């Protein structure tokens, strides 16, 4: 039984996961004659629909559901491209290359930043990639774990115990303030950006460092200094206070930093972190000047 069912389901899946062909006036796919004959052997017609139209409903729904989920996961990319171009240039080729294999719909787009690195090679790739990483990071933080925090009073007792940054804090090294750019993009729906200039975005003369974190149910970003970024980066991997001392500069306000980190609940003893990308090194494209 399972063999027959597997054959039928494999056949069905092959049709619905293929790229959508041209659609008819009812928004259902128009199939070539040979495929229509094949479908008619398997799917019965109904009083109102032909066999191929009935199959077409599943085909259309498969793609609409996945593309909608991708648009929700990457809201700033949708604004940069518009819905149609996002689907055509990003989401559809990505989903064809990496069809979903996980039960969670919210995870279908988790591989997009990595895929873009090797498959999206246009002039604006640096900006597209940076925004993809940011959209992914915001989504990632919604589900990031909150591990038991270290209280400020307990800091003095943990000089020789490895400390870790909480999983709900992510670090970014950028060549432009893409966080502000993204925030401005999200202030308007995608249709707004089809007729309006994109927000200004200038490459910075020096590298910019950011921490993105979740506080209750809000995700916030802040620009941080290079040395603070370096400290947090070491804490992401896990480090003992005593090992940090030679690495810090004499002028670094180490006590204040650690008190602040502990007060914000960003420090933990646990290393039980999900293996997700945390440090992102990106450069900025100049998409706004191309439009």
């Amino acid at each position, binding site marked *: 039984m399972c063999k027959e*069912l*597997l054959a*039928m389901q494999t056949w069905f*899946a092959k049709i619905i996961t293929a790229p959508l062909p041209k659609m008819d006036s009812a928004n259902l796919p128009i199939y070539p004659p040979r495929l229509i004959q094949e479908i008619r052997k398997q799917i*019965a017609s109904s009083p109102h629909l032909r066999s191929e139209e009935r199959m077409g409903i599943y085909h259309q729904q498969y793609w609409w559901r996945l593309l909608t989920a991708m648009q929700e996961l990457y809201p700033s990319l949708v604004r940069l491209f518009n819905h149609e171009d996002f689907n055509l240039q990003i989401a559809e080729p990505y989903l064809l290359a990496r069809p979903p294999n996980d039960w969670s719909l919210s995870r279908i787009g988790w591989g997009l930043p990595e895929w873009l690195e090797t498959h999206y090679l246009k002039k604006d790739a640096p900006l597209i990639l940076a925004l993809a990483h940011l959209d992914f990071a915001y989504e990632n933080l919604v589900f990031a774990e909150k591990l038991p925090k270290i209280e400020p009073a307990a800091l003095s007792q943990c000089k020789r115990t490895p400390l870790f940054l909480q999983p709900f804090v992510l670090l970014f090294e950028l060549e432009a303030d893409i966080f502000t750019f993204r925030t401005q993009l999200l202030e308007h729906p995608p249709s707004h950006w089809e007729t309006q200039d994109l927000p200004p975005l200038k490459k910075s003369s020096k590298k910019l460092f950011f921490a993105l974190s979740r506080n209750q149910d809000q995700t916030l970003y802040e620009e941080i200094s290079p040395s603070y970024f370096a400290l947090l980066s070491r804490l992401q991997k896990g480090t003992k206070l005593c090992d940090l001392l030679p690495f810090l500069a004499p002028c670094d306000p180490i006590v204040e930093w650690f008190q602040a980190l502990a007060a914000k609940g960003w420090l933990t003893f646990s290393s039980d972190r999900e293996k997700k990308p945390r440090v992102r090194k990106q450069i900025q494209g100049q998409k706004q000047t191309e439009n």
Partner: protein
Amino acid sequence: MPLRNLEKILDRYPVVMHGVSLAIGSAAPLDWDYLKKLKALAVKTKTPWLSDHLCWGRLPGAHFHDLLPLPRRNEVVHYVAERAKIIQDFLEIPFALENLSSNAQFTTDEMSEWEFYTAVVEEADISMMLDVNNIYVSSRNEGYDPKDYYSQLPLERVIQIHLAGHSDYGRYVLDTHDHPVRDEVWEIYKEVYPKTRGVATLLEWDDRFIPFAETWKEALKAKEHQKQITYV
């Protein structure tokens, strides 16, 4: 939904678990990783039962994120029923399957949708999560009287009723959960509800959201309809 938000809900309300990812009729081994997570969540939520759909939706290495139709054949009944028994035994709580909104039948089908649904739940000895909107959608798409469907179901097996709105495209109807419940669906509800010993009713609304107050008002219409029912 992040677990922390679910925990806040659990502090205030009872929760019943309903899934879309089990894909019980798939020609792939049961996904034990998924089932273990489901069981752990069921323990956490203290759900009185757990339900998913009578469909397929995955193959080895692929998940289609849809509730796809199964051939209505005796071999498929046995295949799904066997898996339903295993799942119910593993979860250690009542397990229910929901009827699909059908958009396709196979040329090799040996029975009607209601016969197939009944055969699976009876052979597996599990409950029915009856979606009355899906009865309407299937009847429109396949061209039969919805009464043919619900009048032949073992309604004593119904553990909960689902209601939802659908999108009508003229030649076909889609179960989209983004509209108020249509009058035709309320009519089916009024027929089915009294025969289920007054089980709970759930309004499904998961797209094109309206304000909570209006959603709540829509859900309470079920109570109004219940009052109009004459018990026999």
